[in-house]
């Protein structure tokens, strides 16, 4: 009995390949998007963790210094005077390999003789590679590379690698390669240039300094005793921090980014869920009579329910599996975008390959099937309650649907109320924000049927006036099969509103950033080092250059900026030290604080400014104190103002150059802003400055316009992944609508056949089908506009704010609204093409014979 039931249902699916196929495709796409995003993220995270692990190794703690590092004498003192064991000095920084595209490598300078307790990667510079260790230690400018990185750079052992460090050219000889292919995945020296500590000091200009000293301390009481002893030994400025702090902070930086991506990918799955629901509803409605007969034959409700559910799960399984495969392919593609964003915003990471952890796949399968089961539950239940032998008349069914519409609308209103309340709660929880966002989507979806009915009713007179009977027919048919049409409309609405809201969000963001750039980029020319690295400390301009530029002809005034960061047990703090020209004061826009009071405090009283995200993340405001680890120990600084800044989502602390120099020994300058005599031509000055910079240090001199453009380019690159997701959501939605409408129209073959019999021409039939789907498109589009705007507002004022701490003004252009409308209608109209084509080609007699 059961086997026959399965067979019957399987055949039904096979005889409706379009519906089945599209449902499979829908779920596959939904799963694929989730899987691909997840895999890309996992891969990026793993690559990052791996490179961190490789570099940190077994170190439990680190002694860290200020922006200019640690005095190496501290290390010698520990070793020689204190007999401290398990300590390894590290000098690290970034170097740039020119080329197309250029590449940033992490320069890791170590003392090979102290490494073995710390970093296991030494093992991999094994015998095969026959490392010329003695050369590495004794010969200046020698280095080791991973075989893969070497290959990518086209280098062999013994070759010379040309580098730029802070714009200055260097060449290092590669004296050894770590083996390629590390199947265990336990270490990654990719993008690491490993040198002896002496080479690193020379290349990075860190003579006499160390970036840090790695330590291995025992756990427990003994460890804390040693830690205490160590802290007592050290001067006040260096700090001993557990290594985990660093890794965790860096990973935390990307958490919001990852959460947002995941939420976006879930949106795609949500649309996929609509598809399954839609398809299953169809498959059930089509077979009401059959199901009635089966019930009459003695098939129990439970069996019917199970059959439908298994049907759905089969579709879901096939779709999920296809989705996994497709997701892995897509993941490869997205990997680049995800890493690009991470590189632009957070830290340098290269991901060699897509990691495919089985757990991620298992989760995806679970998600795919779970969503399917959830989506199929209602239709399966619907099927199970079909009374035996009674083919319920369509109208009764649709009457029921109308009741359902009302109920749905009511719950929709409640859900929206819940969503609004959640979003309005004064909280910083991103999770709560996302719950609110999804609730909003859900609520809007629930209201959609009622709204569709209202809209179509509203349109009806106009439609029938313009298109006559055909129009009236089209409108009526939308209303007459609400159980199917509204799901399609809802799916389309969700997708279009998502597309619209993300578009508005990005647009608003871009506009805010552009405005901010306009106000903050005031100088005429900017001098900086080319090839900036994502994570500070940025490169340092030669001090002589700074002075000479100030004295150059045509230069009226200049300001300098030093961007760096301070590690401490509390995490990483980005610091910006400004020597501001009075011209640049007006570039700051303050969210809090009185500008007239801010500047004197900033310049003379060692007060600091904090950027908006910093204030948000740490819950600080004007007159709050921020504690920073200076080179003379910990110190509190008073906050004079909170300013708008879109440069860092972690937030920065800005201080005057004077404050910086008084508290830190670092004297480096990362960039110079130059104000020109209005009578001079920037082009000429630019040339003069290039001459001043000379051939030694390669510097970048750009106009304020170029800076703005470059910044916006980075912005656009950052949002590329979001754009892609937006597109994917649209594609899933389109498939959904396509499948729903196709099925809907194909189901009405007999009605169309009869119309053809009594004289509807093929063209009229074409028009009828097109206006039906078009009407649904219009309905979806019209509904998507307010929903999209609401979602955009949520994204901007809740999600973004909570994720990144930025506020921005919502900017809704009529263009984006029109675009959304166009998208909805186009999707719907396109979806009508196949059925229209098929119906107009078929012979009426065959259409009548259907079923």
């Amino acid at each position, binding site marked *: 009995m059961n086997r026959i039931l399965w067979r019957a249902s399987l055949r039904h699916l096979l005889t409706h390949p379009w519906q089945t196929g599209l449902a499979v495709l829908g779920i596959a796409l939904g799963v694929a998007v989730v899987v691909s995003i997840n895999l890309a993220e996992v891969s990026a995270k793993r690559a990052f963790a791996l490179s961190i692990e490789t570099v940190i190794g077994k170190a439990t703690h680190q002694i860290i210094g200020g922006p200019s590092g640690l005095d190496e004498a501290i290390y010698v003192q520990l070793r020689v005077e204190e007999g401290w064991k398990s300590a390894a000095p590290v000098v690290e920084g970034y170097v740039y390999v020119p080329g197309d595209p250029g590449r940033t490598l992490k320069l890791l300078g170590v003392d090979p003789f102290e490494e073995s307790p710390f970093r296991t990667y030494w093992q991999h510079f094994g015998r095969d590679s026959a490392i010329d260790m003695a050369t590495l230690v004794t010969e200046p400018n020698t280095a080791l590379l991973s075989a893969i990185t070497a290959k990518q750079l086209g280098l062999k052992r013994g070759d010379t690698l040309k580098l730029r460090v802070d714009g200055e050219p260097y060449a290092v000889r590669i004296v050894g390669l770590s083996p390629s292919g590390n199947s265990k995945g336990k270490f990654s020296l990719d993008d690491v240039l490993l040198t002896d500590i002496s080479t690193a000091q020379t290349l990075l200009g860190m003579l006499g300094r160390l970036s840090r000293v790695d330590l291995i301390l025992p756990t427990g009481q003994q460890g804390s005793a040693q830690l205490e002893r160590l802290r007592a030994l050290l001067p006040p400025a260096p700090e001993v921090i557990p290594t985990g702090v660093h890794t965790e902070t860096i990973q935390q930086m990307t958490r919001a980014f990852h959460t947002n991506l995941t939420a976006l990918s879930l949106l795609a799955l949500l649309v996929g869920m609509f598809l399954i629901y839609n398809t299953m509803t169809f498959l059930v409605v089509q077979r009401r009579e059959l199901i009635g007969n089966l019930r009459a034959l003695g098939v129990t409700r439970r069996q019917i329910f199970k059959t439908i559910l298994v049907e759905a799960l089969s579709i879901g399984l096939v779709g999920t599996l296809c989705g996994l495969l497709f997701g892995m392919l897509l993941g490869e593609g997205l990997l680049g975008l995800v890493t690009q964003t991470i590189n632009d915003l957070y830290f340098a990471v290269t991901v060699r390959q897509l990691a495919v952890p089985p757990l991620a796949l298992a989760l995806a399968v679970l998600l795919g099937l779970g969503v399917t089961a959830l989506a199929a539950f209602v239709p399966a239940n619907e099927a199970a309650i079909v009374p035996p032998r009674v083919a319920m008349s*369509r109208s009764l069914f649709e009457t029921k649907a109308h009741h359902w519409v009302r109920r749905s609308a009511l719950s929709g209103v409640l859900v929206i109320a819940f969503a609004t309340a959640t979003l309005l709660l004064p909280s910083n929880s991103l999770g709560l924000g996302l719950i609110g966002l999804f609730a909003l989507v859900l609520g809007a979806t629930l209201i959609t049927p009622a709204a569709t009915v209202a809209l179509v009713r509203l349109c009806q007179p106009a439609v029938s006036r313009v298109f006559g*009977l055909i129009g009236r027919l089209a409108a009526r048919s939308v209303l007459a099969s609400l159980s199917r049409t509204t799901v399609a409309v809802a799916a389309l609405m969700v997708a279009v509103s998502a597309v619209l809201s993300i578009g508005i969000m990005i647009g608003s963001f871009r506009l805010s950033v552009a405005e901010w750039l306009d106000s903050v980029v005031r100088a005429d020319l900017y001098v900086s080092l080319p090839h900036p690295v994502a994570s500070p400390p940025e490169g340092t301009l030669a001090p002589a250059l700074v002075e000479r530029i100030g004295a150059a002809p045509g230069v009226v005034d200049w300001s300098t900026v030093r961007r760096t960061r301070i590690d401490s047990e509390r995490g990483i703090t980005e610091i910006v030290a400004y020597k501001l020209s009075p011209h640049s004061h007006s570039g700051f826009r303050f969210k809090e604080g009185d500008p007239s009071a801010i500047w004197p405090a900033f310049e003379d009283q060692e007060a600091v400014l904090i950027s908006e995200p910093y204030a948000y993340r740490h819950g600080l405001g004007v007159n709050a104190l921020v504690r920073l680890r200076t080179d003379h120990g910990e110190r509190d600084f008073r906050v004079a103002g909170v300013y708008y800044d879109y440069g860092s989502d972690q937030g920065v602390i800005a201080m005057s150059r004077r404050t910086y120099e008084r508290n830190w020994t670092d004297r480096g300058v990362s960039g110079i802003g130059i104000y020109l005599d209005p009578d001079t031509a920037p082009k000429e000055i630019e040339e003069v400055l290039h001459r001043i910079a000379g051939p030694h240090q390669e510097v970048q001199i750009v106009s304020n316009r170029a800076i703005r453009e470059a910044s916006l380019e980075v912005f656009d690159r950052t949002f590329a992944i979001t754009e892609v997701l937006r597109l994917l959501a649209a594609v899933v939605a389109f498939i959904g609508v396509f499948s729903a409408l196709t099925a809907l129209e194909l189901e009405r073959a007999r*009605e169309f056949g*009869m119309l053809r019999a*009594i*004289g509807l*021409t093929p063209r009229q039939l074409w028009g009828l089908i097109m206006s039906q789907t078009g009407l649904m498109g219009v309905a979806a589009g019209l509904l998507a506009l307010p929903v999209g705007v609401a979602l955009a507002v949520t994204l901007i004022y809740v999600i973004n704010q909570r994720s990144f701490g930025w506020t921005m003004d919502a900017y809704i252009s009529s263009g984006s609204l029109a675009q959304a409308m166009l998208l909805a209608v186009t999707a719907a109209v396109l979806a009508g093409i196949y059925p229209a084509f098929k119906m107009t080609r078929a012979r009426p*007699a065959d259409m009548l014979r259907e079923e």
Partner: protein
Amino acid sequence: MRKPAIIKLRNLTKVYQEGEREHIVLREVNAEFNEGELIVLLGRSGSGKSTLLNLISGIDVPTTGEVIINSTPLTRISEQARTLFRRRHIGFIFQFFNLIPTLTVEENLLLPLELNVRNNAEEVEKALHLLDEIGLRDRAGSYPDRLSGGEQQRVAIARALTHDPLLILADEPTGNLDLETGHDVLDLLDRLTRQAGKTLIMGTHSREVVGIADRILTIRSGQLMEEEATP
């Protein structure tokens, strides 16, 4: 007095392909029908009645042979022309699913007029008059699924006449109705077509209806045979 033949069937053959096998439904059928005649096509289920009616109406095309209505060679003109011819000159009554579920009784009735763009007041009035004739004026605003089977068929009959066609084709119009209702529907059909002087070709498996027929044709093994009418 015999009027001239307005429908001519010439060597009509219809073959269905069922996989490898050919299934010949109609074989070299020849017939002529005159204006105003009421013809009953008798035959068992699956004998080819519906196919023949479909071929006459042009919603299906023969494998070979010709259908000529009022000197229009229906089988040789384009689909578009056939549809337009059908729209103007043919009225349809089916066994099931006669009415558009999303249109009201009145709208269903006016559908042919609307399709022929003849929705002037006079024509509409005439059509609505038919509602009186079938006794369903008060149900004009109802949707079809609120009507009984008999009522639906009465609306279908009325609709088949609204646009004043040459020919009315009815395929088992009473097949889905109980005996008594069937009689009522048949009476109405007979009355209205004769009253309007239309040619009616009605396919049926039931000999019950032969009483109203001018001519009786039987389809058997794909062949059409004429029986003597028994008045």
